[in-house]
């Protein structure tokens, strides 16, 4: 098995970089690239306490698999890829996304990791609500999944 994708309900489970490292390990691979995205404590001048991620589960998994398979076809067909994204409330400092890639060479490992991150941001139906100190909260606009040419 060379591909693992999941949405992780953070109230029930944590995203683990150790699990990711174990999954991508292969003695055929000379490079591993790991990207960890975390919830930070500030955005646009506002103090953030956490982020709630909402997701269309089935469409997210479909998009994750499509993006990862595209990345393999584009850069390294034998790459091993681990991709998990958080769902639900994630406090500051916790992992929101983890992408781990094992590939033959460093160039492919870096490129696959970056490609997956950018495509997930643009293609996967995941929405963010930021929570601020003082109790306020706000849904962020993010990227529209409607094809751009149709937005007037």
């Amino acid at each position, binding site marked *: 098995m060379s591909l693992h994708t999941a949405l992780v309900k953070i109230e029930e489970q944590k995203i683990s970089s150790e699990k990711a490292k174990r999954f991508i390990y292969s003695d055929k691979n000379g490079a591993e690239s790991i990207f960890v995205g975390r919830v930070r404590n500030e955005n646009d001048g506002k103090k953030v306490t956490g982020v709630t991620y909402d997701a269309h589960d089935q469409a997210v998994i479909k998009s994750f698999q499509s993006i990862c398979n595209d990345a393999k076809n584009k850069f390294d067909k034998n790459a091993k890829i681990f991709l998990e994204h958080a769902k639900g409330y994630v406090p500051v400092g916790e992992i929101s996304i983890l992408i781990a890639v094992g590939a033959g060479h460093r160039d492919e490992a870096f490129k696959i990791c970056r490609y997956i991150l950018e495509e997930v941001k643009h293609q996967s*139906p995941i929405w963010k609500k930021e929570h601020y100190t003082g109790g306020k909260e706000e849904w962020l606009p993010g990227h529209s999944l409607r094809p751009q040419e149709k937005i007037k």
Partner: protein
Amino acid sequence: MVDIDFMEIQLKLYGSSKLLSDKETLLIELPENSNIEQLRNSLSKIISNKYSKSNLGNLPKSAAFFSKNNEVINDNYKLKE
């Protein structure tokens, strides 16, 4: 005189669209055989009537709609009750 039959559509809400209801879904009445474009127009009216002070003004234009097969559908897609 023309009789128009109506149908009721149940939308499952995600992200900021959840502000449109305290439930996970929103019921919208539309003329039979309506498509996604008509649904967008209907959402625009709902937002300007009930949520004019919110920042949801751009939602009907930017929202993506998914079919039961989890595919993003285009504006010509015909809705069924």
